[in-house]
């Protein structure tokens, strides 16, 4: 779209990020009648899905195993049919409050037309997540060429058609690392092994099976890369089995390779939000939200991987829809946001987090609760209590730290109460 320099851009809903979360949010907000703008820094919308050429997307939403680009394309088509202003190659550079609390926000954006200002009643943050890099994991030695994050390797191979190395070692067993082990192998590189410090892979079983076992790529658990060797280019890495944080003497080995690929975790991208100082959740590393995906800043919503790292894109799209619709209702003063109260959710027992962290009450219908366990367990009983009274119980089997779980909470159980504390606990027993 051509930006008109003369006129100040004004929208009801501005979505930041054009991945699956942002596209779903923009579609939902537009369908509620809002004037919507979507900002994307890249040339094309689609987000991370553009480079995820493997299949396994959309099983819940389309009952099909789509590839990432196919899933993104379907949403981009839907978005194209709506009167949404999509600004690509556009960076959001700052967010400020615009007057009093319900007046919304003032954004500065930069693109080929220069710097523009944009006024918006609400914001939907859908900027995805970024990868942890070698600066965030402790490895000795130089930093020669040949160290990539798994996402960078994926971008190089799948979008640019360039093989980052011929002999690779992968550190970490996140899903992107597993998927890249397979891609590298198919493209003719040899993957010497995958080293994971934990006692179980951090990616999904399906990926361990179809990306490593299918190709005979060894997975070394309780192991890590201690040091990188090579001055200009990676020449080898030193690996070892670890016990209580210390390398086991006779397991220290040198593995010759020309590249080291890191798949050591993802961090929700929320830097832009800092100026508004929303309440953050230190476990998810995203903002704390209620069931409408609204943060503690009025009119600011969060969804997708910016909110918490998801393993299924279907849930990402769903959170985008919820956020987009809620933002549109808020912008037209239809959300009834100032009535009622809020209940606080806390995760306890073998749970690393629960989302949403707050519930706005009174409200109708059911809210999907998403949670992740700290450690895998053959079974666990989930108990939800409100002010000490049990309101929901369910037994789960084969819980995996790598897999997000979901359970619907029917809000009618709160009849009459507009607040209080809700404890969500996963306990070991329960048969």
């Amino acid at each position, binding site marked *: 779209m051509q930006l008109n320099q003369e006129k100040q851009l004004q929208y009801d809903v501005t979505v930041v990020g054009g991945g699956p979360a942002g596209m779903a949010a923009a579609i939902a907000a537009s369908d509620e009648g809002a004037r919507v703008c979507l900002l994307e820094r890249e040339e094309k919308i689609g987000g991370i899905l553009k480079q995820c050429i493997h299949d396994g997307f959309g099983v819940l939403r389309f009952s099909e195993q789509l*590839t990432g680009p196919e899933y993104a394309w379907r949403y981009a088509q839907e978005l194209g049919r709506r009167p949404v202003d999509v600004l690509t190659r556009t960076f959001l550079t700052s967010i400020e409050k615009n007057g009093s609390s319900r007046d919304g926000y003032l954004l500065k954006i930069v693109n080929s037309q220069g710097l523009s200002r944009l006024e918006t009643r609400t914001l939907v943050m859908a900027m995805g997540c970024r990868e942890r890099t070698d600066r965030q994991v402790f490895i000795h030695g130089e930093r020669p060429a040949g160290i990539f994050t798994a996402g960078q390797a994926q971008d190089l191979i*799948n979008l640019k058609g360039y093989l980052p190395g011929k002999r690779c070692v992968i550190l970490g067993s996140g899903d992107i690392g597993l998927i890249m082990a397979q891609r590298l192998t*198919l493209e003719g590189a040899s993957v010497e092994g995958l080293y994971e410090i934990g006692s179980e892979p951090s990616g999904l*079983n399906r990926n361990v099976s179809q990306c490593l*076992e*299918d190709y005979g790529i060894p997975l070394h658990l309780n192991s890590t890369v201690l040091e990188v060797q090579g001055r200009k280019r990676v020449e080898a890495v030193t690996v070892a089995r670890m016990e209580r944080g210390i390398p086991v003497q006779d397991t220290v080995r040198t593995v010759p390779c020309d590249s080291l690929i890191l798949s050591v975790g993802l961090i929700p991208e929320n830097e832009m939000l800092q100026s508004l100082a929303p309440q953050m959740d230190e476990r998810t590393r995203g903002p704390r939200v209620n069931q409408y995906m609204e943060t503690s800043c009025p009119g600011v919503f969060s969804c997708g991987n910016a909110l918490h790292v998801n393993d299924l894109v279907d849930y990402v799209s769903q959170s985008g829809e919820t956020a987009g619709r809620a933002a549109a209702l808020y912008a037209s003063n239809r959300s009834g946001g100032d009535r009622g109260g809020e209940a606080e959710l806390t995760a306890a027992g073998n749970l690393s987090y629960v989302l949403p962290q707050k519930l706005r009450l009174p409200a109708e219908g059911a809210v999907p609760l998403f949670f992740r366990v700290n450690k895998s367990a053959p079974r666990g009983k989930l108990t939800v209590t409100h002010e000490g009274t049990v309101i929901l119980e369910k037994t789960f*089997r*084969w819980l995996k730290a790598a897999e997000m779980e979901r359970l619907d909470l029917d809000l009618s159980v709160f009849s009459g109460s507009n607040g209080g504390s809700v404890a969500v606990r996963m306990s070991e027993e329960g048969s």
Partner: protein
Amino acid sequence: MITEQKNITCIACPRGCRLELIPGAEGSEAQIRGYECPKGLAYGQREAVEALRILTSTVKTCSAEMPRLPVRLSEPVPLDRFREFMDLINSFLAVEDCKPGDVLVRDFGMPGVNLQATGELHYEN
């Protein structure tokens, strides 16, 4: 049918049992060990007969903006033939506009298997 022992993770449910596939004598049915339920036994037996997978990759284009087009095979194919399929895929050049779902080559390396675009390619003029 497998000819040597294979250890795999069952993916028929989240439990992820370790299965051992042990080849039977002279082409007879493989023996499956380690499963905890009938679903796992069936999965192991299928994998022992023939491991079928969907292959996805990319092909070259003449576009500077989009040097690679993502593609898939329309049907699952035997895992042990992936190398051949990769060679075929790597020798294909996408010279025409296409969108996800378009068939690029019919009967690609195997009757009934098509090479399909999963991305959109658009050449200027």
